């Protein structure tokens, strides 16, 4: 069999080296033998060494392997590599097809040799480069396509049925649902970023979790990767003292606080498994694309600088705030009427703020006359490399749909895949109304603190938190977003549609973007499939979607404005929160009863959201009620009425409605009292139900890592420890030995 030196002597680049240099290089190689079937290069774990195949044959595997043609890799082929010196693109697996021998050069060996023998470095680059260039030609020939700067024969087009601009949650859900409903559809996602990175938008409600389940993301995976929470907590605070008022809680189901990079890597992986083609590092050039008529011709620029044309019957813009199509068409606008700003950062809680029920695992809202503050605790994987994170996610998806007991704990996964875990940084953001934001003229870094100083209760809580100055790469200590609300004149036309934040963005409260964005995307997927079935891509074919998206946007704008305006008074705050929930329950209680009432909601089922027209928030009853409350507050404020008088006027609208809903027999059967600490089954306000109240989702809090485990767990799913103390505890009471 050929030894490494003989092989290298025959290599164009190494052949020119002197004997001393060549011997030194060969001396740095470690020869290893592998049986047929052995993995020589892993697709997910980062490669640690560069290998020369010296005997036997190997094959490239992976989603893009077909591009390399069917010729096996033989002796003399370079495999693997390390940072900056790669024989093959990442994400490919190389497997021995016969018994093989390889000569490995470790990174350390490389560094030593290149200091001692300067001729080796360029020879190695040249040798690898020649193989890369030949491989490149092979790819071009295999596909008959022209790529890069100097190969190929003719330009080819990528042709799809549906192209999605943007690989965020809504684009992924839309693409995957289409693929599930109509598997023969050719669907591609064009994502600008090479890999998912930091985004804000962390809290989720049940519809997002159920959507995730419908896309293949199981509950054990949610639990391993993300911090869970059981609902929402609201308090009201004013400028007069440091107390919190009118605590309102809603503990109904286990949902999760997302670190968006992790979520998006996970969802992209699921989409790929479902057959959606994903092109990352691919930017759409709307100005150079032909978006009218059929087919759509979308010009893209890749990270390598190449331009390609992608054709599609339907283009869905899910590019988020970049709103590629909306901006290009000039149909996207900022809302001038009622708007908010957001100032946020990341913190660590250093001590207990001594606020009753602060410990309940939930997204916490501190509402105040100008707006509100969010508190979201995260499990952060920010320190994990892209490769390690992907490997961990791949492993979790392999375990699907096994019993949850068979899954490693979160900490075991962190250890096994070299993914450093940070529990729990707290995302905290102030969201004031633009019209009464008193911090807008201050420097960005001072705006958050302005509200801390202005509201004594907020100040008291922030005294127990410490700022993380550099939470994410490129993330300054404080970030400001202003005038958040955006909408579009149109949401669809002939063969195009807008979903997610690319369609509209409403003021944040109750996670409207993700929650209802999934509902809009679900309807968009349904309408797209219908258009594909009919072969009709006319404006008319997407008219129902256009209308539904507009209805959703208008409803959410009114919903959220009502809530923000109600915050001017602690009484209106509590009444309007309840009015919102009560109206939804009134409208949807037959469906909730079907599933077994509130206690049954803790079992998460894979359910796609029903689409805008079936959402309670978009019902004419609720929207007209919200608009009536808004008008009442606005008119009376303009007339100079006192806050107490206005609060009484709000009560006069909402109290009869709440009473009526609470009296419905079907509503009383739901056992709403299990979901609310301060309300009974008929929605009457009651005093705090005390420590024995267990909430709709009973959990015990781990005394070692502070995670909240559903009661059926005998050991903590994060750290593997059993509970300290004999009794499982409820959502509301922490293990006494909290660390």
């Amino acid at each position, binding site marked *: 069999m050929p030894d490494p030196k003989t092989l290298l002597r025959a290599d164009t680049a190494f052949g020119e080296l002197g004997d001393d240099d060549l011997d030194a290089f060969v001396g740095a190689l470690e020869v290893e033998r592998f049986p047929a079937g052995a993995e020589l290069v892993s697709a997910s774990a980062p490669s640690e060494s560069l290998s020369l195949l010296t005997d036997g044959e190997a094959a490239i595997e992976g989603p893009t392997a077909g591009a390399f043609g069917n010729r096996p890799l033989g002796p003399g082929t370079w495999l693997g590599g390390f940072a900056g010196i790669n024989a093959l693109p990442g994400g490919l697996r190389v497997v021995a097809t016969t018994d093989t021998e390889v000569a490995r050069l470790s990174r350390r060996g490389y560094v030593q040799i290149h200091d001692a023998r300067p001729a080796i470095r360029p020879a190695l680059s040249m040798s690898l480069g020649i193989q890369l260039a030949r491989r490149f*030609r092979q790819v*071009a020939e295999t596909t008959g396509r022209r790529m890069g*700067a100097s190969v190929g024969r003719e330009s080819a087009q990528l042709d799809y049925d549906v192209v999605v601009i943007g690989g965020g949650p809504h684009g992924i859900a839309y693409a995957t649902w289409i693929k599930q409903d109509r598997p023969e559809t050719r669907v*591609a996602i064009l994502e600008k970023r090479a890999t998912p990175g930091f985004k804000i938008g962390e809290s989720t409600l049940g519809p997002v979790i159920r959507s995730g389940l419908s896309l293949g993301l199981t509950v054990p995976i949610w639990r391993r990767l993300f911090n869970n929470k059981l609902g929402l907590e609201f308090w009201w605070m004013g400028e007069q003292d440091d107390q919190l008022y009118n605590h309102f809680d809603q503990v109904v189901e286990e949902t999760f606080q997302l670190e968006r990079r992790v979520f998006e890597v996970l969802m992209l992986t699921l989409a790929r498994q479902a057959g959606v083609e994903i092109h990352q590092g691919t930017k759409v050039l709307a100005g150079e694309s032909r978006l009218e008529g059929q087919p759509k011709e979308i010009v893209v620029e890749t990270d390598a*600088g190449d331009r390609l044309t992608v054709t599609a019957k339907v283009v869905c813009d899910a590019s988020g705030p970049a709103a590629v199509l909306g901006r290009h068409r000039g149909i996207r606008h900022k809302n001038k009427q009622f708007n908010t700003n957001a100032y946020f950062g990341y913190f660590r809680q250093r001590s207990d703020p001594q606020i009753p029920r602060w410990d309940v695992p939930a997204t916490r809202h501190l509402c105040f006359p100008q707006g509100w503050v969010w508190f979201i605790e995260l499990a952060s994987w920010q320190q994990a490399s892209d490769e390690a994170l992907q490997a961990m996610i791949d492993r979790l998806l392999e375990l699907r749909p096994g019993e949850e007991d068979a899954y490693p704990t979160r900490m075991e996964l962190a250890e096994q895949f070299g993914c450093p875990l940070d529990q729990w940084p707290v995302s905290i953001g102030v969201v004031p109304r633009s019209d009464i934001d008193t911090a807008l003229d201050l420097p960005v870094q001072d705006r958050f603190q302005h509200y801390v100083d202005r509201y004594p209760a907020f100040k008291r809580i922030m005294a127990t938190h410490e700022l993380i100055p550099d939470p994410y790469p490129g993330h300054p200590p404080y970030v400001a977003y202003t005038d958040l609300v955006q909408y579009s004149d149109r949401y669809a036309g002939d063969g195009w549609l807008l979903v997610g934040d690319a369609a509209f963005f409403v003021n944040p409260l109750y996670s409207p973007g993700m929650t209802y964005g999934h509902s809009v995307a679900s309807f968009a997927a349904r309408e797209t499939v219908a258009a594909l079935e009919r072969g009709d891509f006319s404006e008319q074919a997407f008219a129902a979607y256009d209308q539904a998206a507009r209805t959703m946007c208008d409803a959410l704008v009114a919903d959220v404005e009502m809530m923000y305006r109600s915050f001017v008074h602690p009484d209106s705050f509590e009444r309007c929160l309840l009015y919102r929930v009560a109206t939804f329950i009134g409208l949807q209680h037959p469906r909730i009863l079907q599933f077994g009432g509130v206690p049954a909601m803790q079992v998460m089922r894979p359910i796609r959201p029903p689409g805008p027209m079936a959402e309670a928030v978009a019902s004419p009853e609720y929207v007209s009620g919200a608009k009536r409350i808004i008008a009442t507050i606005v008119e009376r404020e303009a007339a100079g009425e006192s806050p107490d008088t206005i609060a009484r006027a709000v009560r006069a609208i909402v109290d009869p409605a709440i009473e009526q809903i609470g009296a419905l027999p079907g509503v009383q059967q739901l056992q709403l009292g299990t979901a609310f600490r301060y309300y009974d089954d008929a929605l009457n306000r009651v005093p705090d139900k005390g420590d024995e109240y267990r909430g709709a989702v009973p959990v015990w809090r781990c005394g070692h890592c502070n995670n909240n485990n559903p009661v059926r767990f005998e050991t903590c799913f994060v750290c593997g420890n059993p509970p300290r103390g004999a009794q499982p505890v409820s959502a509301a009471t922490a293990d006494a030995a909290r660390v």
Partner: protein
Amino acid sequence: MTQADSLEAEVFSARFPQIARSEEPATIAALVGNLTLHEAGAGEALVAQGTPSDELFLVLDGRLDISIATANGERRLAAVDSGQMFGEMSLLDPAPAGASVVTEQGCTVLRIGRARLDALRREQPETAAPLLREVIRSLAARLQDATSFASGLESR
């Protein structure tokens, strides 16, 4: 055509930080000394489709279009801007060029052919190393990109 000796290594380093990073200024000066400076006029073809080519080009200033002749006429595929290189494929695996590379408004490039590079590798390996490192990095990135698009074609 003039020798690039007069070109300051700093100018090169500013344009190609990915090559100059972590190298001694003397190494970069020596590398620049081995590249040929070329001022191209507007519309000049630096590479002509179908013609043998073994040269690597580094764009100092200006912009070039990469295009191919097809049955339907000239088709523009991509642009190359200052700070980018082209011709890696031809340098490493010489063959008739698959596309033409033409300046838009005129531009300044540095060029090096295979024979010169081979001599440089033998005589001053330290000087050739940073350039070659960038060539393979760029090529690996392009290959990655090309295969991910190609897989889209494959699966149909």
